[in-house]
């Protein structure tokens, strides 16, 4: 199997907050050539920012990104999408008037038949009959949107698939089902999955775990290597610790 390589060199990102420069990512160097990589770390450590920089939604203040050796730092979101990068948003977007079928057709790059839509939706535990012609609007729950978002990424089947906290905003029961989707994806995918998650069961599937804190990479390695660090990271202050 061909493993595709995503490489980040010296990525920095800072944003302005009340006329003060805040550093969000500081000198990130990373090579992703595994099938399933999990990024974890405390809130505010820069994980989502990193994902958005890879997808082209945010532009780094310094550094370069390579996909299979090609510098994509200056490529637009659309160009990166067509070169093989997919990105599942942490908060899926709603569209008045656009149906599940249309969205999945856009994702797969052609007019998908009902049978194909059925295949895509059943992968994420949804029955096509109930969803094919539903509008992707406020009538769908957070969990349903999340699954449709994941189905879109699977329909694309690109070299690199990035998921930003797929567990966020869905109930535990839905999550139990979702985890199976990722376990299955691990078996079937012909590319790399980069998944931002706090969930131990997701971390369990990963070939490699990247631990981030304070805009930097603290540790990269197997679960056994990274977990002890994870527990020591983002130590609560004494007042909070006393209450825990």
């Amino acid at each position: 199997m061909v493993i595709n390589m995503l490489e980040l060199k010296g990525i920095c990102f800072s944003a302005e907050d009340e006329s003060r420069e805040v550093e969000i990512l500081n000198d990130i160097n990373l090579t992703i050539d595994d099938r399933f990589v999990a990024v974890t770390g405390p809130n505010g450590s820069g994980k989502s920012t990193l994902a958005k920089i890879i997808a082209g939604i945010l532009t780094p203040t310094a550094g370069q990104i390579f996909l299979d050796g090609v510098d994509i730092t200056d490529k637009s979101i659309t160009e990166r999408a067509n070169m093989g990068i997919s990105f599942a948003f942490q908060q899926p977007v709603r569209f008045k008037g656009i149906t599940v079928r249309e969205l999945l057709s856009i994702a797969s790059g052609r007019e998908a038949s009902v049978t194909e839509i059925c295949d895509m939706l059943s992968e994420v535990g949804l029955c096509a009959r109930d969803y094919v012609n539903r509008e992707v609007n406020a009538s769908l729950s957070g969990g349903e949107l999340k699954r449709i978002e994941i189905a879109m990424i699977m329909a694309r089947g690109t070299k690199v698939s990035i998921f930003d906290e797929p567990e966020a905003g869905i109930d535990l029961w839905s999550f139990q089902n979702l985890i199976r989707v990722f376990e299955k994806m691990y078996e079937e995918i012909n590319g790399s999955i980069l998944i931002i998650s706090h969930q131990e069961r997701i971390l369990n599937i990963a070939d490699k775990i990247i631990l981030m804190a304070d805009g930097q990479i603290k540790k990269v390695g197997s679960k056994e290597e990274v977990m002890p660090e994870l527990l020591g990271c983002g130590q609560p202050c004494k007042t909070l610790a006393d209450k825990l």
Partner: protein
Amino acid sequence: MDAIQQNLLEQVAGLHEIPAGAYNIRANGQMAARNTTANIDIITKEDKSGIDIRIRPGTKSESVHIPVVLSQSGLKESVYNDFFVGEDADVTIIAGCGIHNGGSAASEHSGIHRFFVDKNAKVRYVEKHYGAGDGNGERIMNPTTEIHLADGASLEMETVQIKGIDSTKRVTKAEIGEKASLVIHEKIMTHGRQYAETDFTVDVNGDDSSVNLISRSVAKEQSRQLFKSKIVGNGKCQGHSECDAIIMDGASVSAIPELTANNIDANLIHEAAIGKIAGEQLMKLMTLGLTEKEAEEQIVNGFLK
């Protein structure tokens, strides 16, 4: 009928050939074709331009097409059409107006449609407006719709103006009886320097009656839109109006809703939202491989579908 008129007819009424059921086709101010059925009669008015459409009580699943096409530059006309829908009838009425203006003089069509819907009758009314032609003469349409719903009657109106009308002032007035209901779906897209104004006035008079006005519009380039709605609840009723607009480029959109409750059991709601396309919607579609322009088209088409 020539090719230009055929094309207009297809745009406004989806007609490729002579429709089934009753119809009256008006082209350049003249009657071009008419058909009546055992239950639906069409009579030319004698005092002014227009027709009376009489639908017998109990008529079921029949349709009436009354499209109008204008291809002669500079033609201005006002047409008065009255619909009398008998008790318990259940019919579909398809109107529509297409203007092709290849000249420099303004072409204008003002259709004044009045509906008298008798007890427990059901009407679905579809109206499409379309303009074409490369002349610099303006294409103007000013439709007026007047709806009278007797007790238990219902009317669902779909009105669409997607392209090519330079100026429009759409006035809709309705009065609603007991247990009667009115639903209006309006879709408008303006571009260039077009102007569209919509003005609804609905008196909800009967108990257990309802009205639901839903307007979706897209204003592009330098176009302007004005949405006015006035719902007056005089009985124990439900009234809801919704104006949802996407604004683009240098366009301008105003929404002026008005609600009046004259009865303690009148329940009236208005929702209005005007805004540009959400950045995250564009971004999502771009991460699926669409360009920004393609993404914008998808969002607008979906919104107005």
